[in-house]
């Protein structure tokens, strides 16, 4: 198909010249976001010194405060149909994703596939995806607490002491069991991301949600496991596949959006169970 965008009643999704995915809300004209992949080089330290430990299974310690970009523009193809429209995109030969909108469903699915993370350069890498919206979130974001209440997080801040962060990235990372949200109190807009598994996440810039999706590290962080986080399968690093679901809109009617988010969360966490029975050849299928 020669189209360069997909959409349904709620969203229009396209890929821009830099390979970033652009999501535009159809009903909420003043709301949009771009999505992209990045990675941090992992710290390889001297574990004898407390402030110089390696990034490992227990701790996330990027070497630099800025994540690396992927230089090549991503290749992609578009598949459309009556039920679902998909963009199949590859950012590198080890990061690909499917962006998906279903007819009548008020969310955008990002089905990402990362790995095996290359480590021939002897540098561990921690891969993140960023959703950068035009919301002014004023340094605040919300993460869930084991799928229960949402807790307010404030960038570079702790509620009970004056904070001076020596590790500005990892010091702002929080557990995301199933949901992370941003709000714009002036525009009265809200953006939420639901996950299919527990991940780490943050908001390092206003309007941005950053999620860590895969890590491959070559050094033990000396906190107890005694092994580097360097799993291999079939002689290569692990490949990870997972999904993010983006939902958002106006909070003028907060109850309506909350119900939509809750309903989606329940459907994701308690998905239908599929059982399969083969039909043997020459046998008639069960009749209604």
């Amino acid at each position, binding site marked *: 198909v020669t189209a360069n965008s997909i959409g349904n009643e709620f969203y229009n999704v396209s890929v821009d010249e830099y390979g970033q995915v652009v999501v535009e809300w159809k009903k909420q004209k003043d709301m949009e976001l771009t999505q992209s992949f990045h990675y941090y080089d992992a710290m390889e330290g001297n574990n004898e010194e407390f402030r110089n430990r390696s990034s490992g299974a227990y701790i996330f310690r990027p070497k630099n405060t800025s994540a690396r970009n992927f230089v090549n523009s991503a290749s992609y193809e578009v598949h459309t149909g009556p039920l679902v429209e998909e963009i199949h995109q590859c950012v590198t030969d080890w990061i690909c994703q499917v962006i998906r909108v279903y007819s009548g469903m008020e969310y955008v699915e990002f089905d990402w596939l990362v790995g095996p993370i290359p480590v021939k350069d002897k540098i561990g890498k921690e891969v993140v995806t960023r959703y950068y919206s035009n919301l002014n979130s004023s340094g605040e974001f919300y993460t869930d607490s084991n799928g229960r209440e949402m807790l307010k997080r404030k960038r570079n801040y702790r509620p009970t002491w004056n904070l001076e962060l020596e590790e500005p990235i990892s010091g702002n990372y929080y557990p995301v069991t199933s949901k992370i949200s941003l709000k714009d109190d002036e525009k009265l807009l809200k953006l939420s991301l639901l996950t299919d598994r527990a991940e780490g996440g943050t908001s390092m810039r206003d309007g941005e949600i950053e999620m860590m999706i895969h890590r491959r590290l070559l050094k033990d962080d000396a906190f107890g496991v005694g092994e580097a986080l360097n799993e291999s399968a079939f002689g290569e690093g692990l490949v990870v596949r997972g999904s993010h679901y983006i939902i958002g809109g106006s909070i003028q009617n907060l109850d309506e959006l909350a119900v939509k988010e809750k309903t989606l969360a329940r459907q994701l966490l308690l998905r239908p169970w599929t059982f399969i029975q*083969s039909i043997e050849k020459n046998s008639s299928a069960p009749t209604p």
Partner: protein
Amino acid sequence: EKQLEHFREAMGVMQHHDAVTGTEKQLVAYDYARILYDGMQQGTNIAADAIRKWRSTGNSNFAPEQMHTCMQLNISTCLYTEDKDFVLAIYNPLSQKVVSPIRVPVQNGKYNVIDLADGNELTSQIVPIPNSVREIPGRKSTSTHELVFLASLPPLGYKTYTVKRSSENISPQV
């Protein structure tokens, strides 16, 4: 009860902080995977028994040994759907009605999805599995596409669908 015990034990073990956060040693991770897989298999037997009881018609098409689950759907792989016609029994664990997208790995072609409750054919769509997924190391599958349809499921209940490939309409594989 005995089959459920495996699952209970797995859920108990998986509450250790190393299992929750992934800070276990690699050999322990393999053992956790083994325990979970075992628990899931036993759970499948229980669920298959339950659905067989629900089908009070006594239809032998759903004998427990013939019902399967696919634990590799996350890499778009399922031995039982890739090259055969099949019946799907889909259970909704929510106490609300849902309309949920169902994706099943198949080979390229044209398929008919029939709702067995009313005999109506559902709108379905074939979507290619991306090369990045098909080339995952260790993935062994003949499926090249996914069959997609929207299942409308009752609360805490199930529906069955037959999926048949209409061979006269197979489109050429690129």
